[in-house]
């Protein structure tokens, strides 16, 4: 998976604000390519957020999410330096993950 992911986690009080960008085409299967044929569906189905290795949020998403999805999440009880990991899995089995320390 060459598409990049970007992540940023900032602490506000005891809540970490996590913003993540996932590089992904998110094809709906309804769009026609230059050759006039429908571009097959290709989209992220699952998103998982972990705090220090423990899953805190699981998302299931559909093709209705925009291309190169950007999400914001909030995680309570986090401390500076804690590790936030975000991973995704798409409908073709592609996967990627990124992690950052909460600043």
């Amino acid at each position, binding site marked *: 998976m060459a598409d990049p992911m970007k992540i940023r986690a900032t602490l506000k009080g005891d809540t970490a604000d996590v913003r993540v960008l996932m590089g992904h085409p998110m094809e709906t299967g309804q769009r026609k390519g230059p050759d006039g044929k429908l571009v097959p569906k290709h989209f992220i189905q699952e998103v998982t957020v972990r705090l220090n290795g*423990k899953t805190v949020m699981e*998302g299931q*998403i559909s*093709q209705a999410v*925009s291309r190169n999805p*950007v*999400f914001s*999440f909030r995680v*309570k009880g986090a401390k500076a330096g804690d590790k936030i990991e975000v991973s995704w899995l798409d409908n073709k089995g592609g996967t990627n993950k990124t992690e950052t320390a909460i600043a």
Partner: protein
Amino acid sequence: MNENRRQILTRAGETGVLAAAFAAGLLRPGELLAADWNKDAFGSKSAADALKSLGASSAADSKDIVIDAPQIAENGAVVPIEIMSNVPNTRSIAVLIDKNPFPLAAKFDFLEGAVPFVKVNVKMGESSNVRVVAEAGGKHYAATKEVKVTIGGCGG
């Protein structure tokens, strides 16, 4: 979440074992890749069907769900939607766009530690109600907000 599945996927991708397994008919791709993905709900072509698949047909309207979305979205391909549920013990939030071909756009499950808040960009084919259904303590609560779209996001 099934940890093993991920590991299997990662390792198999590296070694090509996965391809062999497919060839041998041992694994069916749909099951392997998205065992957790709610195919019925996401495949529903009407919001009512999607809600039924989620078991949320009888969601009560609630003012405790705050939807922050533009009244008028210029570009239907990227409509930012911010959701905060103030219903105590919210466990999941589902986002539906009534007039999209497949209304259910996303469903987020919040485990211990996560605030029931999410911000996500969605595509909207045309002006529609955005419906948010939150689950808390086995009950469903809903809120809607209308978003007008001037250029659709699902065209060719």
